[in-house]
């Protein structure tokens, strides 16, 4: 891990009228680090993620990202063209519902290849070879390359969405409940896959989840949110094994023991 952070978030707030989405959030994210944002429904996790991923403009505060040339740029001072370019090259966004992140009416191969074509790849054979390679890496049989995601199971769709996001070798991936709605065995395989990819590719990731087990498995560091505020941050194992804030203690003690 490098000494210079990849993402610097300062005093970030988002208000929906008089309601608070998230307030005064500040943190830094280093290359190769996986940060989990946990909390109950309505705690502002997704609002925070959307503000970071430029899907929702924050009310105040700044988000600075270190570009490939080493320069820090404020995401909300960039032109929209630059921001969208960043989103489809250096970043990935994995939605909870794969239908939001995939084009359901085009084949799996085209879904993976879209980002390549968007950055100017114009060789069909090479695009297809890359798509085939990526389908293999996310454990989708390569003979399904011409099938539409509609014909895929939930777990396959989620893996396809991951392949689609990682094909341009991004440095930062945002994930919104990546395992939500999947049954436990499929969830376990997906987590295994994600963990492998994150460590192989040295990805930095911000994972929003309400599932503390997912956070423990994937993340190095963790932020606990409640009512739009961060109530506790720390190394994942520390937070889960020795929660300090009363709310975190409640959260950790609420885990069902099987």
């Amino acid at each position, binding site marked *: 891990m490098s000494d210079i952070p990849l993402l610097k978030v300062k005093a970030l707030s988002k208000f929906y009228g008089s309601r608070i989405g998230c307030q005064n959030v500040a943190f830094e994210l280093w290359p190769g680090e996986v940060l989990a944002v946990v909390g109950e429904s309505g705690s502002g996790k997704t609002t925070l993620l959307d503000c970071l991923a430029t899907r929702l403009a924050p009310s105040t505060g700044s988000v600075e990202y270190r570009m490939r040339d080493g320069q820090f740029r404020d995401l909300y001072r960039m032109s*929209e*063209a630059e921001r*969208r370019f960043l989103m*489809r090259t250096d970043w990935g966004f994995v939605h909870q519902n794969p239908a939001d992140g995939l*084009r359901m009416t*085009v*084949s799996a*191969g*085209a879904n993976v*290849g*879209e*980002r390549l*074509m*968007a*950055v100017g790849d*114009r*060789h*069909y*054979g090479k*695009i*297809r070879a890359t798509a085939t390679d990526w389908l293999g890496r996310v454990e989708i049989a390569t003979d399904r*390359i*011409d099938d539409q995601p509609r014909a895929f199971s939930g777990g396959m769709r989620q893996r396809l969405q991951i392949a689609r996001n990682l094909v341009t070798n991004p440095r930062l991936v945002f994930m919104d409940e990546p395992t939500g709605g999947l049954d436990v065995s499929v969830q376990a395989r997906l987590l295994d896959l994600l963990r492998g990819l994150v460590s192989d590719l040295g990805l930095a990731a911000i994972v929003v989840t309400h599932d503390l087990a997912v956070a423990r498995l994937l993340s190095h560091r963790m932020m606990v949110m409640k009512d739009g505020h961060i109530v506790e941050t720390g190394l994942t194992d520390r937070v889960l094994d020795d929660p300090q804030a009363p709310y975190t203690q409640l959260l950790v003690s609420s885990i069902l023991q099987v």
Partner: protein
Amino acid sequence: MIESHSQLATYNFAYLDEQTKRMIRRAILKAIAIPGYQVPFASREMPMPYGWGTGGVQVTAAVIGPNDTLKVIDQGADDTTNAVSIRAFFQKVSNVRVTTKTTEATIIQTRHRIPETALQAGQTLVYQVPIPEPLRFLEPRETETRKMHALEEYGLMHVKLYEDIARHGRIATTYAYPVKVEGRYVMDPSPTPKFDNPKMHQSPALQLFGAGREKRIYAIPPYTEVVSLDFEDHPFEIQTFSEPCALCGAKGSYLDEVILDDKGGSMFVCSDTDFCEDRQAEGHRGHLSANPAEAAE
């Protein structure tokens, strides 16, 4: 105003009122200034249904003058319903000369074809466009497609071509084949066969596109670069035909299949009727054309 002795209401020259024509001309000028960009305009109700060429008719009405000569084609033919009606319409409301000869026309309104005879400087080709947005079937949101045009995000267009190759082994899009105009805007050339795409490139004629229902006008000024999108390993190709025209023997023109009987008999003839008739008048014969000597008797 045209002279009329009937009890019917009379029309302003070329049907539209002068304010409307000015509005459309402003849209056309903007379209010419930004080749391939879709300019919104306040499309009017025309005395014909949407989908029958209301956009093309409005563009023609805005650019036509008393000294113009108008030709109207539908699928290349001068004698089909749409072509005959629109030609008669302009004859009635603007009293201009009309022709079926490509070389004599100053304005050619077209649906689905570009004439085989090369167009000249000073001629204007007006296309009737049903759906002006090339990205529409991939991205249904207008706000998003406009943003994609603004930011030049055209990766999605290649996704469609990718799908074609994955499914059919080649680019199977045969009409409305997307083009990039002057290295900037991706444009739908209206449902012309891709056979006609190369004719748009560096054409000496002005090309105007009108979409009445969708309320958009776009243009290709003369001598503009028009490139059909493709892949390096699957380059753009036009359709080819295995046999020449059955009436005029032309090779390398775009052919229509005409059913001759109910036993499966058919022939391939030029879709451009004016081109085919000219060639026959010059003495060219296909294998099904009547012998001129016999026809005379």
